[in-house]
């Protein structure tokens, strides 16, 4: 499956789960077990989804995107941090308390904004400019990552500095002209030694 379809499949699921959750909020005597049954896997998946995108999708968007992928990625990592912060904030409050619902609502707003922006920008850019075979391969990797992490165990759920993330990924993705994979982190053109090369 195309990596962008894998991402969109998760987006659809996120939207449906938040709707189901806030349907319970509207009830006069909400079922706590039902709330937890929706929120726990949703919270875990939000974290795992963000980590999976950062591991698999955004590095390739930086490499193949042409509609300012750096800006798209900076926005996305910032959004992921807000979503992670929302999940962490909810975990600090009693389930279904007003503070808990407020934290979950903030998480939902951050996620809604992120998904809309990602669908409009990063995903559209990648669909337009990345090779279909690459998108398919990445889709397989993303599905394997998501299937392999049903919870956040073993997943990096820490906030990331967006600029540092982009700098590090760009350094890794832009090999030198001689094809070597030596990291170039100095912002140079990477011309280096031409010893023995003929003009």
């Amino acid at each position, binding site marked *: 499956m195309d990596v962008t379809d894998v991402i969109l499949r998760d987006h659809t699921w996120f939207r449906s789960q938040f709707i189901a959750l806030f349907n319970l909020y509207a009830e006069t005597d909400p079922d706590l077990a039902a709330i937890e049954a929706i929120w726990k896997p949703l919270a875990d998946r939000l974290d795992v989804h963000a980590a999976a995108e950062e591991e698999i999708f955004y590095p390739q968007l930086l490499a193949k995107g042409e509609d300012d992928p750096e800006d798209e990625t900076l926005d996305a990592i910032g959004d992921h941090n807000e979503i992670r912060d929302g999940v962490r904030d909810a975990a600090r409050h009693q389930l279904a308390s007003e503070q808990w619902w407020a934290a979950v609502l903030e998480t939902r707003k951050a996620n809604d904004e992120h998904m809309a922006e990602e669908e409009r920008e990063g995903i559209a850019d990648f669909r337009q400019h990345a090779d279909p075979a690459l998108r398919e391969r990445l889709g397989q990797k993303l599905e394997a990552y998501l299937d392999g992490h049903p919870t956040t165990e073993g997943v990096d759920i820490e906030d990331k500095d967006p600029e540092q993330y982009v700098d590090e990924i760009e350094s890794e993705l832009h090999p030198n002209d001689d094809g070597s994979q030596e990291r170039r982190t100095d912002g140079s053109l990477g011309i280096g030694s031409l*010893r023995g090369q003929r003009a």
Partner: protein
Amino acid sequence: MTSPNHLLRGHAPIPDRAWKTIDAEARERLTPLLAARRLVDWVGPGGWRHDAMPLGRTDTVPAPPAGLDTTGVLLRRRRVQPLAEYRVAFTVSRAEIDDIQRGSRDPELDDLARAAQVAAELENRAVLNGWAAADIEGVGEVSPYAATALGDDCSAYPGLVAVAVDQLRQNGIEGPYALAIDPARYTAIVSTTEHGGYPLMDHLGRVLESGSVVRSPGLTGALVVSQRGGDFLLDVGQDISVGYHHHDAEQVHLYLEESFTFKVAEPDAAIALT
């Protein structure tokens, strides 16, 4: 390695696609012009914060800190060769950047081409001819051999180069060897065939023991240089980079930047031809 933030590229009104185009064009323009890098050993890049080349030598410090009796104490100070920096300014029109974003595949980056020529000639000249103001002694400057007149008759070059190669070999300097030569004479060599139609370039290649003739913009005259390695060290801090200075409504003002120094370890390994 240091952060590239000092280049301020993130502050330029240049989208990612246009940055890639500008970088690719700079690389494409510079690479064929950077002759010195084809001839000398490379050290680095050490990054923007790399200040100096260690020389492994010391000077005597004439006096201790005031008030101390240091009888019998040896006082020395390490010698280093500081890196020089250059920035060559150029501009890219914002209209051109817009066209690159639209998908233009024939960007007009003429001022970048001019800057690349200046940057490459500066590096070539510093390494091959020397740059006294930056404490760089060039390959030709420190050669102990009497310079030979090369002249403009390129049919005589194989004989002159053969004599130079023989002189190096007699001094224990092994090959292969390379001939660095200014662009005008290089063009003459490329376009010349000897009696029987044998290309002059091929003849020179055999004289140089399979070494190459290197077109060297910025070089005055020519040099026969050993390519055995270890004789010439180009120490680069920040390798050539494109940075951002400022912009206005019409133009984005950028620059090419590099920090480097150069040291000849074995002066006997090259002969200048004037």
